[in-house]
């Protein structure tokens, strides 16, 4: 196995045991980037020199016996979605508007990752501003799915999923406003986490829709996901919407198994799922049952309204959040917004405008309450809910690009978690037609530990997550 193929856990083990150095590990990743980035277009910015320098420092710290306790990611090369502000490092939001923007500050999560000893390899491509489910809305070109380069890798965290799936880095950050971490993870056969709203600080991460944005990450295993969240989670004095609930050790209950846990499935919501996806999902259901979980049918009454609800709230907030891009203090003029950003600005401006606010935004915020209650009721019966991440397999590049509504509808299974503020973990559950399929595990707010417990138990009985694309 090549060094760049390692998980965080194994890389850490190797570094600790001095089997290899962080410089070697970092070089392996950089090599892989050089080999495949041109074709896959996962990175917007690669910071080779800086990364190697940081790796050297990490090796020094490690040799001085620096406590791994305080630096759980010491020497681990990762990459950041280009929505994460990085001091002195270009941060573009994958948009021409910000193509030369260099932040004067680090996002809280970036600071935490750096403090934890992580090596930043560069900034990852994505749908500009986080707007999209295919990665095609980047102003710097689409990212390709490593499993089949004619297919989309999902979005918006396209580069995050692709860089991890193709072993260009050990893990990557992502954001998830309506599925942007979970869906590309499922399209690329890796693990994606959307934490509870407010569990991870949004400060310094370019806002998409403030009431929905969750800061997630993409890893090769569930255990890595838990390890990563141990670093990023927690109250931030700079983000008033972060929770002050204590952060548990997410690794603690990881291996507890799932015997006796109740898992809910909303059968109604499977009706719109393609067979290629449904089949692996139903098989996963059986595997979970075999592991001792009890499957219970639940009813999410308002899930049919989730897309309408989401595509009112989200563009409304987008229209306001993108108002600061006026080319005065940074960036360039508003004409340079890409088509999807313009579309959402228009839609959101309209749904907030005089005479329409009540019928759209306010109504959607009420329906949001009903959707949230749906989940609260369901979680009275079950410990977690499972469903496919996407109703379809990855689609071909260009297939939906001219039909925004069709593109929006592909978010049907993921947006509910954002509306309800609950966490969701996406794990690989197999392949159809050579393309990956993912399952998401949804839990109550702040139940990430339980999601890891379920995901890890499932992962231990399958080999899917170990499958690597042939590049």
């Amino acid at each position, binding site marked *: 196995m090549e060094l760049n193929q390692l998980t965080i856990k194994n890389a850490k083990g190797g570094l600790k045991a001095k089997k290899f150095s962080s410089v070697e590990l970092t070089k392996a990743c950089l090599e892989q980037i050089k080999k495949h980035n041109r074709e896959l277009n996962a990175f917007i910015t690669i910071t080779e020199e800086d990364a190697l320098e940081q790796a050297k420092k990490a090796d020094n710290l490690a040799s001085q016996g620096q406590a791994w306790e305080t630096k759980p990611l010491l020497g681990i090369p990762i990459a950041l979605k280009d*929505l*994460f*502000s990085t001091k002195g490092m270009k*941060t573009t*939001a994958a948009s021409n508007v*910000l193509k030369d*923007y260099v*932040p*004067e*500050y680090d*996002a809280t999560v970036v600071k935490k990752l750096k403090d934890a000893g992580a090596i930043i390899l560069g900034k990852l491509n994505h749908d500009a501003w986080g707007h999209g489910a295919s990665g095609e809305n980047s102003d710097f070109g689409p990212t390709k799915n490593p499993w089949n380069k004619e297919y989309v890798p999902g979005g918006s965290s396209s580069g995050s999923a692709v860089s991890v799936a193709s072993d260009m880095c050990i893990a990557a950050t992502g954001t998830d406003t309506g599925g942007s971490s979970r869906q590309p993870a499922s399209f690329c056969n890796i693990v994606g986490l959307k934490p509870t709203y407010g569990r991870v600080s*949004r*400060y*310094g*991460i*370019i*806002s998409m*829709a*403030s*009431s929905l944005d969750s800061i997630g990450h993409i890893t090769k295993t569930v255990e890595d996901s838990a390890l990563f969240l141990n670093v990023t989670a927690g109250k931030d*004095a*700079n*983000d*008033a*919407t972060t929770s002050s609930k204590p952060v548990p050790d997410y690794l603690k209950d990881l291996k507890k198994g799932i015997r006796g846990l109740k898992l809910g499935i909303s059968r109604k919501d499977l009706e719109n799922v393609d067979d290629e996806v449904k089949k692996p999902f139903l098989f996963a259901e059986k595997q979970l049952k075999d592991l001792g979980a009890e499957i219970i049918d639940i009813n999410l009454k308002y899930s049919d309204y989730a897309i309408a609800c989401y595509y009112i709230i989200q563009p*409304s*907030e987008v*229209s*306001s959040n*993108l*108002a*600061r*891009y*006026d080319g*005065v*203090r*940074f960036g360039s003029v508003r004409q340079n917004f890409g088509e999807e950003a313009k579309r959402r600005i228009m839609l959101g*401006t309209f749904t*907030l*405008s*005089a005479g329409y*606010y009540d019928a759209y*935004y306010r109504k959607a915020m009420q329906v949001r309450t009903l959707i949230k209650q749906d989940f609260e009721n369901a979680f009275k019966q079950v410990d977690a809910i499972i469903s496919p991440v996407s109703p379809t397999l990855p689609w071909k590049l260009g297939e939906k690009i001219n039909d925004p509504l069709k593109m929006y509808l592909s978010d049907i299974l993921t947006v509910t978690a954002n509306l309800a503020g609950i966490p969701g973990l996406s794990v690989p559950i197999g392949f159809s037609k050579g393309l990956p399929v993912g399952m998401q595990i949804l839990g109550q707010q702040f139940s990430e530990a339980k999601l890891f417990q379920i995901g890890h138990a499932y992962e231990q009985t399958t080999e899917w997550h170990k499958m690597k694309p042939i590049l």
Partner: protein
Amino acid sequence: MIYKTVIGLEVHVELKTKSKMFCGCSADYFGKKPNAHTCPVCLGLPGALPVPNKTAIDWCIMIGLALNCKIANFSKFDRKNYFYPDLPKGYQISQYDQPFCQKGVIALSNGKKIGITRVHMEEDTAKLTHQGDDSLIDFNRSGVPLVEIVTEPDFETAKEVVEYLKKLQQIVRYLGVSNADMEEGNMRLEPNISLRELKTQNSKLKSELPNYKVEVKNINSFRFVEKAIEYEIKRQTEILNVGKTPVQETRGWNEDKQKTVSQRIKEEANDYRYFPEPDIPPIRLSEFQISNFKSQMPELPDLKLVRFTKNYGLPRYDAEILTREKELSNYFEEAVRAGKTFEVNAKQITNVIINKKIDIENIMPAELIKCIVISKKINILDNKKLSEIINKVINENPKAVNDYKTGKVQAIGFLLGKAKQHFPKGDANQIKIALEMKLK
């Protein structure tokens, strides 16, 4: 035709908190190097988020309480969306339908009550200066806490407006929450003025407001507000008299030209697309917290004035002067306390403070009392007693009197000494003069 003037007021008061409303930058921007008090939050950099300043919220609530408002149990921030180069985020964080304070009232000296519609919290914009073809932007002011106080259209004259404004200024200064300096821009006013035709005997029409209003900006003194309102009344009367309706617009007061001028005729449809600020959780206040605020309120000028007239037996005029500024009223009361031991009464202190225009920053209240005591002792030598004593001294010391009269003027020192024995603390000068008078 006769018109009745209808005036409502929007006043913005900038709070003197240490830091800005939503970030830790210093809120003290006046005269500072441009763009040196900014950070990602108040510059509106990508990804930056606001966290509200607790003190600013507390102070907004205190202003509301001082204006007899109802304090909301549940309140939230909203985004007011519009584009202007002084607004870094493309929206201002303000409060829309659930402000901290609503429905207050304040009484003018003529007994008239002015309704306070609302008192809410928002953030200031950057400062724009226009220079030739360019506008220059300084974001030091961006995000400074601003409290907006909106009245009902209850004013009928410029005088009423000015009285209200002075009162408001006095209140916020009493609360210690703002310098409320008009020239420095800590207190900004926007009167909206319109006229309605006075039709007698038609009660239905009487309650109707005019179908337009003219907002006047750029007023930075009480004098200007008076002039601007009077100018507008005249201007609008002339328009109405020829059967037209004044244009609904924003005008600015031009001091050089002594008139208001139209600012932006191309008034864009004001569609601010307010929605709840998702970056800031709402604020909930329990009745307990609200009553806590109430109990912490300092004594306000109106009540203090009443107390001064009652407790110290001062005439209203004097009490008004003493309570105009909190510092002076505190000084007065401290002096009263210090004066008790020396039998200096409030009345005497008042007279000295008002007539002598005491520099309260440099003379401590105790010192003032000392001065009063000394001057009081001088005055004690009433002329009747003094002349008795002097007569006595003259009679008892014929030699010295003779010496003096024959040209040995220094003999007066001996006589003075004798007289002073009777007034050990008396003013030597006064005695000397009285002696000389007698000896002439």
